[in-house]
């Protein structure tokens, strides 16, 4: 939400019509399809790659696909920065808040075993 005067944005408005061509869209879609194929291959050969590599790889591919769809299909790359800001804010807020929440669960499980070592551990 930067302080924006209407007139500054007139120029940006022209940019908005700068869409990629149809063939470009098809190429992007093919790339997305290819990335999906890579994901599935990683899933299949999980045993030889190791769980950590697969997890990390899948998360990275997920983020890349997310970004491609957002930037090109949803035009964020060509649209007002305000929209990107709003959406990314919601996204990052969600990631941080829920990451902290899930970590708090981890910490509390961890705590269960620590505080009462003498007691029979209750299955959680």
């Amino acid at each position, binding site marked *: 939400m930067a302080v924006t005067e*209407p007139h500054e944005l007139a120029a940006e408005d022209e940019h908005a019509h700068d869409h990629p061509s149809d063939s470009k869209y098809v190429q992007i879609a093919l790339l997305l399809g290819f990335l*999906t194929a890579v994901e599935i291959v990683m899933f299949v050969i999980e045993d030889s790659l190791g769980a950590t590599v697969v*997890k990390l790889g899948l998360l990275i591919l997920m983020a890349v696909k997310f970004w491609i769809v957002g930037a090109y299909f949803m035009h964020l790359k060509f649209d*007002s920065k305000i929209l990107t800001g709003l959406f990314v804010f919601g996204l990052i807020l969600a990631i941080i808040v*829920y990451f902290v929440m899930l970590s708090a669960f981890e910490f509390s499980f961890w705590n269960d075993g620590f505080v009462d070592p003498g007691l029979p551990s209750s299955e959680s």
Partner: protein
Amino acid sequence: MSSATATAEVEADHGHPETNSGISNNKLAMWLFLASDCLLFGALISTFLLYRTNISDNTPFSSAVDDVFDIPFTSLSSFVLLMSSLTMVLALSAVNRDDERSGRIWLLTTAFLGMIFIGGQVYEFTVFATEYDLGYSTNTWTSAFYTLTGFHGVHVSVGILLLLGTVFGTRKSGLGKEKAENVELVGLYWHFVDIVWVIIFTIVYLIPIG
């Protein structure tokens, strides 16, 4: 509104009144809604993550998730949804060119691909319920799984209705270039639903537990 009489000329040029941000009200509202929806799906995904190891609770089998999920099938339906994003942008591109006929065809194609995806989801749920006895209240995993994917399914269904509404609601008025923003907004919603599935597909189906 910001601009009463002063910007009347500008409006005439651009087809919509000038706003402070340079973004039309409708589009800004849609993006605000999508930003807000991130928190909605975030909460559902987190719930699933919390319970994702509990799949075999209260069931006769002691399987891991891998045995239940039909990855080739889900990959295919994920691919279908991904490609529906392509047809959606092609629809918008056609409407922007004032190519009404192609616009309608691509919109209908998008809706059709969406229906295939929903059909796949219904099939998957049916298999889960009948072959694996995974009912909604079987355990925490099933509740979280069905709710997360079900919410996504509802979003897709709403998207299908929007697409069909755009195609059939404009039969009289036409679907010319002046409607491009409406198509764009439906498209934004549709792509959002698609990227949510990108996340669900990876986190729920592909990432190994452990």
